[in-house]
């Protein structure tokens, strides 16, 4: 039950993009086509789950026992950067179609603050391994959801007569604001 709450909370109620503003850069950048939004979301979800596991292990078995908590930020960010590289290599070896689908998005993920945010939340909220995995998966699902919804709306916006100065990032942010309002309706279900 607790795991279920963590999942729902990360995916919907406290959506990383719409409530915590994490991962806005790819959100504004990649959310103009539904197909690439879904691929990006899947790649991010995958990296998030792996990051959740690895950062939990590092925090619980290296940083805390050796009293090195102050190295948290550098070690997490390095882990994420090397993890993304590693995942890219593995996917390339294992599955060419998957690599073609996700490949170009992987390098972008390193600078996605949602991943670092996830690692920091896990250590801050003292989740155990299982909770970390569920939290990572939920956050990924939430990110994919926000990105895909946004892409769907932006595809429609192409046909709308948006004032010149508001095209691109401004209208995306305004639509995100409206989406965030809609997501507020989910508050209170946990």
């Amino acid at each position, binding site marked *: 039950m607790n795991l279920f709450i963590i999942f729902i909370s990360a995916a919907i*109620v*406290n959506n990383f993009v719409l409530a915590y503003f994490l991962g806005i850069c790819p959100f504004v950048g990649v959310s103009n086509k539904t197909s690439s939004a879904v691929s990006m979301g899947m790649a991010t979800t995958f990296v998030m789950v792996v990051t959740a596991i690895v950062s939990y292990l590092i925090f619980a078995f290296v940083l805390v026992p050796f009293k090195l908590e*102050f*190295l948290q930020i*550098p070690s997490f960010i390095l882990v994420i950067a090397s993890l993304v590289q590693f995942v890219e290599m593995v996917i390339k070896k294992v599955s060419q179609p998957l690599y073609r689908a996700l490949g170009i998005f992987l390098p972008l993920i390193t600078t996605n603050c949602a991943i670092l945010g996830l690692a920091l939340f896990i250590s801050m909220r003292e989740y155990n391994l299982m909770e970390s995995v569920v939290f990572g998966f939920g956050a990924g699902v939430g990110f994919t959801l926000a990105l895909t919804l946004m892409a769907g709306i932006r595809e429609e916006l192409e046909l709308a007569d948006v004032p010149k100065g508001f095209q691109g990032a401004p209208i995306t942010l305004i639509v995100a604001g409206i989406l965030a309002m809609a997501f507020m309706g989910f*508050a*209170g279900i*946990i």
Partner: protein
Amino acid sequence: MKTVIQMLVVLTAIGLISGGLLFQISSWADPMIAVNKQKATEEAIYIVQPEGKSYEKVSADGFEGYKVFGGNKDLIGYAFVYEGNGFQGKIRIMIGIQPDLSKISFIEILEQSETPGLGTKVTEEPFKNKFKGLNSKANIGWVKEGASPKDNEIIAITGATISSKAVVAIIDSGLKKLRTLKEGGKL
């Protein structure tokens, strides 16, 4: 080959320098952070037990509480921290209570992430004051605005019913825990 060595040397050097620097700074900052934390707890204890002059930490079964003493070292009550789910996230509350657990002295919300402007009203004085002197011999409860509360009930805030309910529920389960500990002679 030369670049590989250069890469290794540069990375190692940077890693060592930054690790050393951070170690220095954290050993300077850590005691202060600990003091800040303790000061915050202390302040909260004296908010919920205004007559308190000194306190002593008690812990049993993973429960964090404080015995609060008055001017002449007499026990004037307990203060303890309890947490639970609110509307959107965790709420952490410091609760002050009489020595015989019959009445709540005061409460202080330590952490919350309720809706600003609505749920956050539970952190404001008018709401917290409702708990002053609340009968806590048995369960505590809440009623909606307009109804007349008994001496163990508070009136929930209109527009923030869920947050109010959550605060009541957290305090209630905290009290339950405290009562079992007291009956078990662990305090």
